[in-house]
């Protein structure tokens, strides 16, 4: 097991004027045994970053080390990592057993030891009865487990997961998520897990890296990322429905939104005057007859345990989340809202970066 460190990692495709830079200097220190999820929208460079750690993509500049050893120019097979691919990439003509044993055979591990490791992995993943089948005879979930088994038998320093749950149906995905968590608890291997799914990210991560357009927007525990998003991107990407973001001009405890005639009255003073974006999560907006924020209800969605109420606030469409046991507001009704001061987030209007309250 090992720590992984990324120092100013840059990836460029092509050369000279046509060069297309897709990763713009990522820095991260991943501790031994940590489970890190890299999350971001498609095309943000998260898979590229993972593939650079795996050695499948060249590092244009910067440094990647695994267990203190710089691996920029080390072949993937010599990096002591194992990777689980989105489409599993099992060898279709080999049995489950051979799929798991193949890497060890190449590494000339003695037969008895190969057998022992494969049987052990099969036991952990409950694949014992499938060892002689070919991947075609397995379901998606079983194939996924074989792909994990192939990673486990290598006993690597790090596991790299490239969206391994995307091809599973929702129920199986939830179940496999728990299995991966359990596996990580048992094996304690440093893991990098790439996903575009924020639920996967939140549930699996010890720390998560949120990426956007080739940049690392934030690294932190799920609580930090959700509770103190570092930018408007993180605020709107993590959380469903996303955080309400209201652009406007702050002046003391008044906040003038462009679409509204009267400025919003804040429960506390804004951190500074000028152009800011105010963020507040849907669950932190409260219906309060004394509230200073008027919201014209445009739609109500019933989700079972809660309702989502959508309406215009400060000239933008905002959402609040209320308990389903409360009476449902009618469309067209005007609600008065308030939000506790500790749950207001402030972002710079230009850079989108968080402004400390």
């Amino acid at each position, binding site marked *: 097991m090992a720590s992984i460190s990324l120092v100013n990692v840059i990836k460029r495709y092509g050369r000279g004027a046509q060069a297309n830079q897709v990763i713009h200097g990522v820095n991260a220190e991943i501790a031994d045994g940590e489970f890190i999820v890299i999350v971001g929208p498609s095309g943000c460079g998260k898979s590229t970053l993972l593939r650079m750690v*795996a*050695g*499948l993509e060249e590092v244009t500049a910067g440094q990647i080390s695994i267990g203190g050893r710089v691996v920029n120019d080390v*072949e*993937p*097979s*010599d990096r002591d*990592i*194992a*990777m689980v*691919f*989105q*489409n*599993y*990439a*099992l*060898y*279709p*003509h080999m049995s489950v057993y051979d799929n798991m044993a*193949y*890497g060890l055979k*190449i*590494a000339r591990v003695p037969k008895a030891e190969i057998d022992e490791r494969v049987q052990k992995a099969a036991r952990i993943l409950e694949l014992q009865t499938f060892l002689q089948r070919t991947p075609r005879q397995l379901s998606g979930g079983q194939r996924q487990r074989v792909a994990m088994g*192939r990673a486990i038998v290598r006993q690597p320093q790090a596991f790299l997961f490239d969206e391994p749950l995307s091809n599973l149906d929702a129920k199986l995905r939830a179940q496999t998520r728990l299995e991966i968590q359990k596996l990580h608890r048992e094996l304690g291997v440093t893991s990098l897990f790439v996903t575009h799914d924020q639920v996967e990210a939140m549930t699996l991560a010890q720390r998560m890296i949120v990426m956007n357009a080739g940049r690392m927007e934030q690294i932190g525990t799920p609580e930090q990322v959700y509770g103190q998003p570092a930018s408007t991107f993180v605020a709107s990407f993590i959380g469903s429905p996303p955080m309400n973001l209201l652009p406007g001009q702050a002046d003391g405890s008044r906040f003038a939104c462009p679409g509204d005639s009267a400025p919003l009255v804040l429960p506390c003073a804004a951190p500074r005057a000028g152009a800011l974006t105010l963020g507040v999560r849907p669950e932190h907006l409260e219906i309060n007859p004394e509230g200073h924020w008027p919201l014209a209800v445009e739609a109500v969605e019933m989700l079972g345990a809660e309702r989502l109420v959508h309406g215009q606030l400060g000239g933008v469409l905002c959402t609040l989340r209320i308990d389903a046991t409360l009476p449902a507001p009618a469309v067209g009704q005007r609600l008065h809202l308030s939000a506790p001061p500790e749950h207001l987030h402030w972002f710079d209007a230009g850079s989108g970066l968080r402004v400390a309250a």
Partner: protein
Amino acid sequence: MSGMVERRASLDLLAHVVMVLAVLIVAFPLYLAFVASTHTAQDIVQAPMPLWPGDQLWANYSAALSGHGGGAGSNAPVGRMIWVSLVTALVITFGKISVSLLSAFALVYFRFPLRGLVFWSIFVTLMLPVEVRILPTYKVVADLNLLNSYAGLTVPLIASATATFLFRQFFLTVPEEMVEAARIDGAGPMRFFIDILVPLSRTSIAALFVIQFIYGWNQYLWPLLATTSEDMYPVVVGIKRMIAGGDSGNEWNIVMATAVLAMLPPAAVVVLMQRWFVKGLVDTEK
């Protein structure tokens, strides 16, 4: 609905009539060849020609196989000719498959200078039949002293644009992740080729085996040029050489026995490999 059924029945009938006719058209000459191979030479040239098998089967076939026919043309033993054909066809088949597999592997998985040019020159030769280059090829083979040798019979026919192209297209469908998984497993290029690509291509290989074996077996023009000695005739050329021109008496019974014998190996290959052949043409096993 009964109208539907009736129409179906008549369509079925029509289809069967067409199929039976087609089978007759294809099978009757074969049957006639077989009948001819079971009579004496005199019986065959009578009019009308006999339509039922005669009693000379054993005599004719053993004469053909050992070369004791008394015809005006070549009397080379068919046993030897079939052997030459078999070796030639197998060398061409295995040669073509291995050369094409390797060149497709190089084209798809390696970046080398002029790769595009190489691919396009292979692709363009798809459009050129052997006959176009037959004179220069003959010159080269003759200068290398390869006439009347297995090498001369096979080497010029081994390079195959079609097979290379077919394998290239197949390799392109192998998911990139599988290549990467193999890289992480530590498989080098040749290891990947042998352990993964070749087994994955096995149905295509089987289909090509059938096609190329028949192609090699049925070669006529090239062996006609490249062989002058009787003991290097493939059977297809041998049949031709048995038939003397003009009015000279041909032992048609022996010629037909040879023709029937010449049909057996390719027929056996098709029958035995049929399942694989169809599979190779219809499904892409990944």
